């Protein structure tokens, strides 16, 4: 931690948030809001004189609310940067100054009530997302009595209670009477591995955290009787089994079974725990002085903001999705953006550090190059066909098409470095003047003709985007989900590329059903190009209906890279719809569309 503060090549922006990210791999532009601390970070020596005079008392977050802090505070003594901060929401007021005692007290004059939030603009080549996680809040699990019974605490509260820098100065005691408990219990899997309340996944760290806590207690308070209630003990890492064995050898009792209910004796404030011991096959009652809930981990609440800032995806449990679960575990779908730590899923410190080093190494592959190639999937504009309408410039999510002016008949120009290759311009061009490199209309037409040349009535044409729906289809395969063999997938970079010409050509060639699929709106890898997909499909539904073609035959679906199940389900549903499309309908459609062409 201290090394970060001292490193000449690390610029630490604490108390700051990323507000905007633009650009692309090698060339990201980032806006960071550096929140006003009202204390000069460089000058503050963390002497703490200001704290003594601050009249505002607030619960201390670092100590899990087990002690208090002032409105001007330092989170913990070893904080980096070593500087106090005024929480302006809590301060009595700086404009006008309502109290000002801290500023009067500060000899060095570090406190500046006029300080404002600052916007820092950065240019970077790569980004590592290490936003971490939250700890599960067990208040909702009423049966364990957390918050109702004071002697029921969470593992993080336990960490603070036993810590020498904790609210009790390291003298471990239970909250109600300040006495060292005689009997203490730990309940595992709180908020994890449950379909009911909490999360269905294993949080990975809680078993070993409890083993560690039990050994800490054994070392310092050998007289405390310790019982652990568990579902399975997962001691899978290097050295973990040894630690688990040490804990058992030290006399910690492990009871297989999670308590159904916790009651409190109102007089002694002791806790009565009823549990089915599944090893012994009997119902047991345990009286404990203190109960620790071994809480799991959850994705951060602000994950969605980060997801949108960087065009990332998340799995159904809310953690960030990696490019490939085995082969690209720290890459994200956005080139140049990498994942480290619990942002990707619950993990312990060793794994977080390992992944962080991996992410740093992956980032260096980019940073160590002077120039990196951009895929040749940018648009080419045929100026002989262009009618200067400007639609391409309007639909481009990146503002990469410029100059076009319908009034003065100025033709469009493509800024290739800004183009990410979604192909929406090409799909939306009303005169077909734009060809996307490597993904031209002619190439798609050839695919459709090959696909629908024989037995078209038995096939479903599926347009799937490279980033979400296509890997969603791959995920169905990786999960071995079975679905009817009628689907034929055509990959586009973005669903925005699936233009009217492609969809109508599929129908003209006799396709009974066409599916257009792309990323969910929040996941679109081309900012918002898939909004144009939706508008276009809506437009086509109207057109098909006017032409006497059932609009139901054109389907739309947003499928993420993690939604293999959805992909398989949709394929099954479309197959049922396909069977209902009559040969007469297909023939009629071919005729109508042939006349128009």
């Amino acid at each position, binding site marked *: 931690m201290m090394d970060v503060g001292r490193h000449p090549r690390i610029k630490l922006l604490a108390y700051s948030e990323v507000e905007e990210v633009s650009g692309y791999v090698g060339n990201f532009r980032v806006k960071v809001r550096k929140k006003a601390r009202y204390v000069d970070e460089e000058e503050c020596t963390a002497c703490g004189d200001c704290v003594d005079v601050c009249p505002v008392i607030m619960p201390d977050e670092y100590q899990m609310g087990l002690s208090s802090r002032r409105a001007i505070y330092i989170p913990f003594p070893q904080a980096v940067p070593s500087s106090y901060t005024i929480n302006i929401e809590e301060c009595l007021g700086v404009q006008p100054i309502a109290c000002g005692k801290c500023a009067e007290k500060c000899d060095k004059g570090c406190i500046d009530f006029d300080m404002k939030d600052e916007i820092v603009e950065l240019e970077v080549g790569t980004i590592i997302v290490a936003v971490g996680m939250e700890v599960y809040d067990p208040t909702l699990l009423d049966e364990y009595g957390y918050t109702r019974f004071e002697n029921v605490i969470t593992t993080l509260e336990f960490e603070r209670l036993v810590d020498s820098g904790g609210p009790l100065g390291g003298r471990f005691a239970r909250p109600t009477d300040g006495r060292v408990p005689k009997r203490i219990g730990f309940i595992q899997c709180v908020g994890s591995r449950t379909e009911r309340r909490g999360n269905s996944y294993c949080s990975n760290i809680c078993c070993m955290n409890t083993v560690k806590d039990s050994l800490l207690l054994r070392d310092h308070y050998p007289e405390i009787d310790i019982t652990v209630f568990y579902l399975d003990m997962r001691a899978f890492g290097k050295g973990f089994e040894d630690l688990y064995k040490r804990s058992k050898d030290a006399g910690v009792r492990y009871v297989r079974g999670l308590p159904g209910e916790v009651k409190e004796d109102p007089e002694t404030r002791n806790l009565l725990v009823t549990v089915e011991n599944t090893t012994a096959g009997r119902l047991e009652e345990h009286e404990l002085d203190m109960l620790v809930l071994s809480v799991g981990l959850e994705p951060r609440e602000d994950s969605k903001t980060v997801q949108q800032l960087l065009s990332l995806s998340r799995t159904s449990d809310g953690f960030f999705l990696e490019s490939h679960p085995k082969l690209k575990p720290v890459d994200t779908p956005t080139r140049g953006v990498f994942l480290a730590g619990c942002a990707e899923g619950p993990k312990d410190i060793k794994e977080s550090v390992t992944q962080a080093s991996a992410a740093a190494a992956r980032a260096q592959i980019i940073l160590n190059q002077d120039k990196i190639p951009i895929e040749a999937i940018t648009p080419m504009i045929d100026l002989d066909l262009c009618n200067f309408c400007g639609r391409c410039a309007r639909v481009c999510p990146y503002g990469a098409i410029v100059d076009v002016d319908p009034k003065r008949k100025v033709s469009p120009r493509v800024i290739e470095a800004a183009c990410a290759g979604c192909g929406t311009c090409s799909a939306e061009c009303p005169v077909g003047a734009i060809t996307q490199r490597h993904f031209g209309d002619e190439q798609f037409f050839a695919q459709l003709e090959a696909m629908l040349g024989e037995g078209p009535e038995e096939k479903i044409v599926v347009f799937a985007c490279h980033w979400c729906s296509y890997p969603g289809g791959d995920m169905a395969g990786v999960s071995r989900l079975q679905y009817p063999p009628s689907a034929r997938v055509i990959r586009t970079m973005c669903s925005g590329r699936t233009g009217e010409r492609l969809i109508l050509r599929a129908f003209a060639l006799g396709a009974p059903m066409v599916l257009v699929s792309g990323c969910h*709106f929040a996941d679109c890898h081309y900012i918002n190009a898939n909004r144009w997909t939706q508008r276009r499909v*809506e437009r086509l*539904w109207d057109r098909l209906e006017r032409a006497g073609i059932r609009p139901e035959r*054109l*389907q*739309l*679906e947003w499928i993420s890279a993690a939604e293999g199940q959805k992909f398989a389900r*949709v394929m099954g*549903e479309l197959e049922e719809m396909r069977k209902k499309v009559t040969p007469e309908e297909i023939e009629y459609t071919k005729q109508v569309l042939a006349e128009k062409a």
Partner: protein
Amino acid sequence: MAEEAEFKCLRCGHEFIAPYDKENPQEHTCPKCRSNSVRRIKT
């Protein structure tokens, strides 16, 4: 204030009312069959 509009699911045929903002298009999902093939019924 987001307005509301009538929608029809082109997968299962279910008709329902949902918020609709012409300027700021949203993802639509059929509450009955979870399909995204949801068409606004123009009146």
